[in-house]
């Protein structure tokens, strides 16, 4: 504030009319009592009583939702087809990587070519019928 501004700010304004105070407060009580307005609802009001319990519940739901999403087939036909294909690939992969079946004792040392086409159970059946 420069000198000119200071000079202006020193000029005193007139005061309100003397009777206005009496007009305003003549009949009313000097102190107004009032109830504060209700505060707005917040999420905190819900969470505050047991934040740990709410947090644990949220975490549990997250785990549940993630698990559901991983195991549920998609609803669209394309999605379902892809899901089915991936399931087949997964199954065949596990078949290929699993160890080869052990031949029955009777066939040990024999030609095991049949094992490539038949399960041990079927071979057992076949041997039984021969006996």
């Amino acid at each position, binding site marked *: 504030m420069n000198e*000119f501004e200071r*000079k202006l700010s020193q000029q*005193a*304004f007139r005061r309100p009319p003397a009777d206005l*105070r009496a007009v*305003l407060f003549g009949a009313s009580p*000097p102190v107004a009592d*009032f*109830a504060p307005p209700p505060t707005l609802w917040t999420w905190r009001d819900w969470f505050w009583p047991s934040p740990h319990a709410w947090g644990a519940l949220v975490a549990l739901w997250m785990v549940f939702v993630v698990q559901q999403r991983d195991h549920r087939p998609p609803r669209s036909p394309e999605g379902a087809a892809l899901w089915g294909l991936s399931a087949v690939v997964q199954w065949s992969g596990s078949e290929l990587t699993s160890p080869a079946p052990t031949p029955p004792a009777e066939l040990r040392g024999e030609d095991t070519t049949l094992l490539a086409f038949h399960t041990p159970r079927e071979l057992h059946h076949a041997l039984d019928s021969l006996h």
Partner: protein
Amino acid sequence: MSLDLRQLYDEHAPALFAFLLNFTRREADARDTLQELFLKLIARPELFVGVQNRRAFLLRLTHRLAIDAHRRRSVHEAAVERAAAEPAALFVDGADPDEAAFRTALTEALAALPAEQRAVVHLKLWEQMTFAEIAEALEIPANTAASRYRYGIDKLQALLRPLYEELR
């Protein structure tokens, strides 16, 4: 909760009346608006709940009421300017004739300012408010408050310079 309205009046009414007198330039309007403001507060004291700066809050309400009052009288804001053409006595009279002349010149110079510039100049000079506080009270951006003040004070300086230099 409770609010001492008489104490509130004693603390703030002189400043609010000064603002209104300078803004409206008519004593009757200033009085009516001040009365309307306090009648509202008597009816709804809960308006003060959560208010940090009472003076700034009251000035904001006062400014709104003054604008509403002028709009009621005329749809054009030019009414404020027309009213300003008939300046009311703004300042307390003093014995010094030179100072009296300066006050008269200042009253006329303030009347030459647009109402919104005058409001900013008043709050800056006579309420010592910051531009941020003025912006909040008048509901304008702080940059606007600063530029209005600069234009206003430059104009006052131009109008009052001869007399001001003479008095120094």
